[in-house]
């Protein structure tokens, strides 16, 4: 269906070609997964299929890409629109119209399908993707999973033979990701659609793939093969494959189900070993990172009637001592009529890592916002370092709590890394060079005059983390830190965060990534509809949950192993 013949792509101003020597054939009706570390040209390869590379992005394509016999050199993207459906990384950037139904019809209108055909296909697609209830809704009001489904639906309606998807599940919670993957599965099985998709979260998708294309390094020719064969040689692997290799299972299992069948022996070997308790849980074992001086930095904002009436005076204005523990008590947040958070109570001790989980829109980001002071509580209280974040001067808060937002790019304004660092030192009142030292530690090999925009997703995250850490905040918050990171970048992030926790930083991370939570968190808090529905040690909370259990836990249940590295440690100790 898709043929690549000696394809290489080179963008202007780069020394090496981004892609080279691609010689592949994607057969009709298969789901082909494209894997590889960040920055090896996965998106470029996907772009060549729809013709956006090079017609839209520029650059030089040599060789030939044909889709169903049409050569992309002579066919512009719009002339391939009836054949190839493309969904990019950010579904919001994909939408042209403003309501769900119009969006589904847009592609068909461009192709000039008859009105009765369009009507029928829109209804079919609404049902196929479970969007019928949302048909009149403005797209901007939908959740991430819903938007991703609308984006897929909008390219499905013209009935393309090929579907090209760039990280369709990265931004989704586990349940929404399952929804999207179930739809793809159905398209491949029932309609014979050929699907080519790139994804970092292999643990979610690799079991559905018929074939895997591995791009091992930038500019290196790709390797194509059956999933289990490729997973043995791939530098990126889901935990299930990792565990399979560790235990020496053959054939290599790719789904939890296959792995469980093979896991009997491993479970017996592990029966005697005790699950290691995560070190560093004991609060105040490490030195507190910064002795925060208690200043009366809290200012009461004038002009609010409620406060004049004395409603705000129920809270003590300045507590006696800087409390190292972060306390959230009965927190409620309302936005218009929507109650984003209700009666949330949470304490985070120094040195503790807490993972906040829950579906998109459950209130995770809102809770982080309240902790950092961007959102004022409508009920209850938040105390970070003894202060109420929303009523404290941002300059004072920077040294008590730091948040790395979902889009780390938002934190970066300057033209060079050095300028960012200098600004961060000034903002935090730290001695000159503090930030630069952190950057060198987290992000070795990045020059002073690199533009932050030229960094990869993982490097940008590390830079933002360094900027936030410049103030040495005892409480560190991360919102969805692994979006767009490959396994190597994730492993580095895990190492850094573990080090910070050992130094006594309290860390709260909101994440959909169950593997990350299993690796890092001492405690998991699950939010649903703005309420805390579970709060406890990671092992207990996560193992019993079908959606939030990491693969290792699913394979080795009822034993409470969470990560491959725990298992490896136990096996090495036992051997």
């Amino acid at each position, binding site marked *: 269906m898709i043929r690549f013949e000696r394809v290489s792509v080179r963008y202007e101003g780069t020394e090496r070609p981004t892609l080279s020597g691609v010689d592949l054939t994607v057969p009709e009706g298969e789901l082909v997964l494209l894997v590889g570390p960040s920055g090896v040209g996965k998106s470029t390869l996907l772009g060549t299929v729809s013709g956006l590379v090079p017609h839209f992005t520029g650059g030089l394509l040599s060789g030939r890409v044909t889709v169903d016999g049409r050569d992309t050199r002579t066919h512009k993207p*719009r002339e391939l629109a009836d054949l190839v459906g493309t969904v990019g990384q950010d579904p919001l950037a994909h939408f042209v119209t403003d309501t769900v139904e119009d969006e589904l019809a847009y592609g*068909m209108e461009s192709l000039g399908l008859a009105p009765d055909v369009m009507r029928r296909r829109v209804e079919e697609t609404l049902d196929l993707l479970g969007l019928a209830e949302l048909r009149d809704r403005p797209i901007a009001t939908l959740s991430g999973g819903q938007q991703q489904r609308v984006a897929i639906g909008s390219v499905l309606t013209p009935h393309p033979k090929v579907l090209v998807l760039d990280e369709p599940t990265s931004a989704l919670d586990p349940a929404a990701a399952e929804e999207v993957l179930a739809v793809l599965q159905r398209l491949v099985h029932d309609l014979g659609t050929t699907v080519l998709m790139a994804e970092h979260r292999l643990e979610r998708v690799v079991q559905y793939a018929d074939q895997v294309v591995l791009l091992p390094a930038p500019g290196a020719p790709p390797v194509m093969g059956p999933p289990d064969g490729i997973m043995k040689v791939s530098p990126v692997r889901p935990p299930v494959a990792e565990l399979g290799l560790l235990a020496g299972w053959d054939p290599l299992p790719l789904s939890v189900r296959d792995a469980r069948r093979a896991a009997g022996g491993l479970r017996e070997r592990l029966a005697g070993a005790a699950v290691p308790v995560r070190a560093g849980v004991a609060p105040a074992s490490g030195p507190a990172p910064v002795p925060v001086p208690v200043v009366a930095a809290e200012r009461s904002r004038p002009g609010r009637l409620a406060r004049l009436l004395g409603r705000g005076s129920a809270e003590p204005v300045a507590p006696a001592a800087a409390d190292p523990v972060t306390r959230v008590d009965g927190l409620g947040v309302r936005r218009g009529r929507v109650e984003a958070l209700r009666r949330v109570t949470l304490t985070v001790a120094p040195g503790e890592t807490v993972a906040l989980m829950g579906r998109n829109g459950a209130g995770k980001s809102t809770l982080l916002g309240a902790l950092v002071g961007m959102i004022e509580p409508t009920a209850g209280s938040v105390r970070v370092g003894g202060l109420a974040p929303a009523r404290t001067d941002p300059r004072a808060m920077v040294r008590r709590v730091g948040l790395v937002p979902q889009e780390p790019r938002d934190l970066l304004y300057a033209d060079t890394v050095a300028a960012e660092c200098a600004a961060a030192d000034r903002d935090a009142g730290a001695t000159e060079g503090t930030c630069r030292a952190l950057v060198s530690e987290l992000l070795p090999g990045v020059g002073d005059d690199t533009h932050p925009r030229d960094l990869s997703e993982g490097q940008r995250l590390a830079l933002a983390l360094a900027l936030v850490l410049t103030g040495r905040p005892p409480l560190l918050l991360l919102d969805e830190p692994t979006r767009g990171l490959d396994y190597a970048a994730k492993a580095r992030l895990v190492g850094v965060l573990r080090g910070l926790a050992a130094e006594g930083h309290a860390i709260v991370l909101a994440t959909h990534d169950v593997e990350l939570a299993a690796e890092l968190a001492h405690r998991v808090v699950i939010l649903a509809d703005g309420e805390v529905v579970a709060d406890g040690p990671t092992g207990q909370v996560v193992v019993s949950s079908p959606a939030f259990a990491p693969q290792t836990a699913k394979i080795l249940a009822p034993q409470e192993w969470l990560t491959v590295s725990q298992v490896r440690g136990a096996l090495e100790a036992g051997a």
Partner: protein
Amino acid sequence: MTAAPAPARLLRRALHAPEADRANALPAGAWWLWALGLATAASRTTNPLLLGLLVGVAGYVVAARRTDAPWARSYGAFIKLGLFVVALRLVFSVFLGSQIPGTHTVFTLPELPLPDWARGVRIGGRVTAEQLVFSLYDGMKLATLLICIGAANSLANPARLLKSLPGALYEAGVAVVVAMTFAPNMVADVVRLRTARRLRGRPTGGVRAVAQIGLPVLEGALERSVAVAASMDARGYGRTAQVPAAVRHTTNVLTVGGLLGVCAGTYGLLAAQGAVYGLPLLLAGLVVAMAGLRLGGRRSVRTRYRPDRWGVRAWLVACSGAAVAAAMIWAGAVDPEALRPGVVPLTAPVLPLWPAAAALIGLLPALVAPVPPSERAADRPVRRGKEQA
């Protein structure tokens, strides 16, 4: 009680407005015709009471039938703009004087002596009550026009209006729609970047903050526009059909010729001596240009998904606006005194009965147009669906 006799009950049921959904949504054009009708009526009178009545009619319909959509919130902005126009008109009148002769001096400003060549222009000087009242009436007329336009703007979905453009203009229309979605996106960007500034412990106000946020916001907007363009291209935007060369040439000749005709006709109408050939030339040019656009539409392969239907309700809405306009024009011919209350000498304006009653016809849409679903009702089933999922 067994209810009213059958015909009356049927009529009432037929008139009872249903809840709006996609199938019975009024075409954007109907709302615009209604609003333009009110605006035409407003342009025919300077009677402040009638103008106030027209504003009230437009405001009532907007309050009764607008949705929660982003464009629906623009009504308030138009009202503010209207008030600003009134104020501006008064200020100009006070400082630059007016041709209106008057005897009631309110106050006198120091007059700026101007050289001889600037005769006829006056800065400062005597301000009379007549002149102020005249400017007030005039400003109110403009403000009412603006508010009528604002009403159409907040009742009709601009994207749907563009959908009813002829095929040849469709692509330009999409570009406009995409450009319009940028403003809200940029506002969201500004909010996000301001919170990010706060995260770095910087003040979020002030000139420097705006300067530092401005560049990333523009950058983000540009990136998004490129991404949307890529998406549109990949989804077949701008596909064209093969058209014979003869048709293509004819299209060009018709369109260009028609536009030239329109220009010449307009010039003729505006110039003093060309009134004879002006109107026919303008009309002929319009017809030719329309034919060109229609022929040009053949090049576009687009079809339309669920176009708005002109049903009885749409006609009622459009005709109610036209009726108000027609009644006001007729009243202007029959009784010009009532529509233009005297300024010299100053008289209190009187509300003319029949034109006022005619203006109330404009309230018809508030009865017949489909009722937008309330926010809460729309929210609830969706939330429930989400919980089940």
